[in-house]
């Protein structure tokens, strides 16, 4: 579908001319009336087959006097983005919810409500999503008149509003702290015996408001490093995606060599992430040999990236306009050597576990996600590809050096945990090949664009295929820093699909089902590991901690 075709179809469907329209790169920006949103969104999603990426709420009151909510769609096969933008009067901040039409819009709309205060009317699940339970009502942190360092008074008692368990079902909690979840997340499973009959989720415990920090304190290049720290596993994806969003908005031409270096780093990151996932998946089902062996293989990649970038994980390579470090000629044989080793050793592990019937017993027909559900929850990445939804932003919205490289996108139709495993295992070898191709064609020249000026009031959207699926950054530029920066990590849609994967499974399967989407909670919640200096530092003594812990034990609901 071309831009013109899309415009024609939208106009035809609406029966009247579109109020305002513009383009930014491969994004079509359409300003529409609030009352037209559900019908247009439904049409784009259901008839035109677009996928909802996320929504972005922006407080534009200083400039236009209104709030804006953009619904971002992707036409994956056409490399086309569509932004349906609605202006909302602050006097009556209500918008008709599209979640009844697009289930995948659930969290995104609740997030806009929490942070900007635009209430989605007729939303099926209007509970709080992002903000802490003790955060005061009517206090919306992403509004421009809200100071970034404001600390609301501490509430005395607050617990999450959770769904009521069905009769006769007992509640099993997975989280907020749980051995197989490396980050805080709170799943409540309603179980009868061992069978799960329902579930509820409360997350966003790691939400630290980095988007607010970005549009109040930092500057364009500082955000690159903040973005990298959104995730401890796919940090480079985030910094790269952010830079690409700014570069798209400012129309900065990145030198070819920088693009190739980004590609190499992205694929090395995918390699380490998939191996990490394989190990974790093994650990979750008690198979520690897989854990240790795949992490052993992964370790070589970590040491390699330390040689390339100066750090084993947070590479710190990106800046708006290019990369900071070159890959010197003398390192290339080393990279090739490690790749060869990783390839043969991964092959060995994959061959060993592929025929393991006990392993298959735990993974096959577990956590089934149908293609229809995958689409309606707008699931991305290996989770989508294991359910027969053939999307991959490297191919569908080519960026960096991917247009020059040849690769296949593994797709499976089974939709279970084993299929998700197979997709990732196949991708290991695709990634190894991609790094080799990129190294072979590495062009010369500079690694940083000459002009990296960012003009204000431009919109940019970038997607990068993270190991867990498509990661998306949206930037509306301002002076010195973005006016709005929105991050949508790949786990955001996947977690919304988790309840449908839990259906009819047992408690024993729950951890591996959660694990199978390769969840990254901090990504989803946009955590910042470094707190803004509060000036005050409270140090708890051992006794105080013990006391607090025991008070919690006694008052806790362990007997409930």
């Amino acid at each position, binding site marked *: 579908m071309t831009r013109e075709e899309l415009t024609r179809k939208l106009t035809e469907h609406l029966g009247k001319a579109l109020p305002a329209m513009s383009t930014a790169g491969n994004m079509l920006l359409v300003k529409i009336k609030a009352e037209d949103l559900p019908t247009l969104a439904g049409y784009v999603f259901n008839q035109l087959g677009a996928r909802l990426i996320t929504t972005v709420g922006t407080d534009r009151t200083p400039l236009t006097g209104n709030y804006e909510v953009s619904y971002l769609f992707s036409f994956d096969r056409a490399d086309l983005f569509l932004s349906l933008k609605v202006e909302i009067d602050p006097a009556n901040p209500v918008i008709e919810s599209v979640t009844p039409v697009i289930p995948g819009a659930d969290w995104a709309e609740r997030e806009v409500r929490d942070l900007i205060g635009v209430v989605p009317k007729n939303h099926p699940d209007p509970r709080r999503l992002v903000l802490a339970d003790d955060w005061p009502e009517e206090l919306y942190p992403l509004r421009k008149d809200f100071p970034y360092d404001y600390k609301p008074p501490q509430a005395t008692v607050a617990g999450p509003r959770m769904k009521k368990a069905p009769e006769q079902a007992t509640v099993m909690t997975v989280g907020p702290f749980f051995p197989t979840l490396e980050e805080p997340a709170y799943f409540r499973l309603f179980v009868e015996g061992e069978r799960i009959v329902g579930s509820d989720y409360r997350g966003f415990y790691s939400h630290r408001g980095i988007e607010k920090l970005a549009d109040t304190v930092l500057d364009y290049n*500082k*955000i690159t*490093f903040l973005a990298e720290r959104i995730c401890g596993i796919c940090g480079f994806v985030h910094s790269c995606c952010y830079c690409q969003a700014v570069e798209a908005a400012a129309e900065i031409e990145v030198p070819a060599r920088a693009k190739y270096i980004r590609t190499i780093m992205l694929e090395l990151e995918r390699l380490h992430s998939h191996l990490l996932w394989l190990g974790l998946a093994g650990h979750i089902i008690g198979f520690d*040999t897989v854990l240790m*062996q795949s992490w052993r293989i992964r370790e070589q990649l970590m040491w390699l990236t330390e*040689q390339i970038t*100066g750090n084993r994980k947070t590479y*710190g390579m990106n800046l708006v306009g290019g990369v900071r470090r070159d890959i010197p000629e003398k390192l290339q044989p080393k990279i090739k050597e490690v790749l060869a080793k990783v390839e043969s050793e991964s092959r060995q592990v994959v061959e060993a576990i592929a*025929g393991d019937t006990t392993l298959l017993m735990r993974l096959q027909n577990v956590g089934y996600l149908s293609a229809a559900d995958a689409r309606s929850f707008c699931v991305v990445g290996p989770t989508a590809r294991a359910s027969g939804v053939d999307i991959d932003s490297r191919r569908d919205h080519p960026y960096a050096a991917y247009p020059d490289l040849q690769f296949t996108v593994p797709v499976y139709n089974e939709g279970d945990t084993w299929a998700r495993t197979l997709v990732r295992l196949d991708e290991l070898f695709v990634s190894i090949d991609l790094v080799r191709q990129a190294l072979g064609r590495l062009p010369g020249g500079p690694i940083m664009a000459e002009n990296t000026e960012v003009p204000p009031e431009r919109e940019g959207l970038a997607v990068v295929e993270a190991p867990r699926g498509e990661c998306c950054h949206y930037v509306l530029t301002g002076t010195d820093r973005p006016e709005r920066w929105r991050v949508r990590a790949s786990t955001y849609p996947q977690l919304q699909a988790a309840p449908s994967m839990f259906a009819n499974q047992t408690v024993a399967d729950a951890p591996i089902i959660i694990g199978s989407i390769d969840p990254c909670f901090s990504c989803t919640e946009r955590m910042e590991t470094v707190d803004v*200096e509060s000036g005050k530092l409270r140090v708890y003594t051992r006794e105080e901690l013990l006391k607090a812990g025991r008070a919690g034990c006694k008052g806790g609901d362990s007997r409930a």
Partner: protein
Amino acid sequence: MFISKWKEALICLKAGRVTLPYPFVPRPTAEGFRGQPEVDGRRCIGCGECATVCPPRLITLVDDGDSRALKVDYSRCTYCARCADVCPEKAIRLGNNYELATSQKEDLTMTVNLKMANCSLCGKPFAPERLLRKTGEKLTGGEFGQEAPEWLSWCPECRKTKQAKALGGVEAKDHV
């Protein structure tokens, strides 16, 4: 199935033991590793470029009378090495030390104190002596001749006033 199990158990034969006897034997870092930031106080000229680019904003400049303090609190450091990139004097580098755990948060701070130069006109301290000397060195030999230009020792306010006077304007009001 049994072949599979057998293969799984035997992966270790080829791999051998890979974990290191850390912490008893330290692990060397790669070339260009970004570890603990080290500030060479003898080279720092107090220009504050590092403070402007630091993403976690942990480098601060505090002017107090005739001294300027460059404070680094690397308990919040993200080891991006942006400071090292931009430092004109190469006074900051990220070293090889990565074992930074401590029970004293003060161990993770560092302060460089620089003597401020006084304005040759009004006598107020306005910039680190070293910064002026370095700037002077860079400016000599070119269009400015062998001597550092005179205005280098004037504080910004005096410079403004002088300029205004030279242009025939009135004296800036806020300058006493």
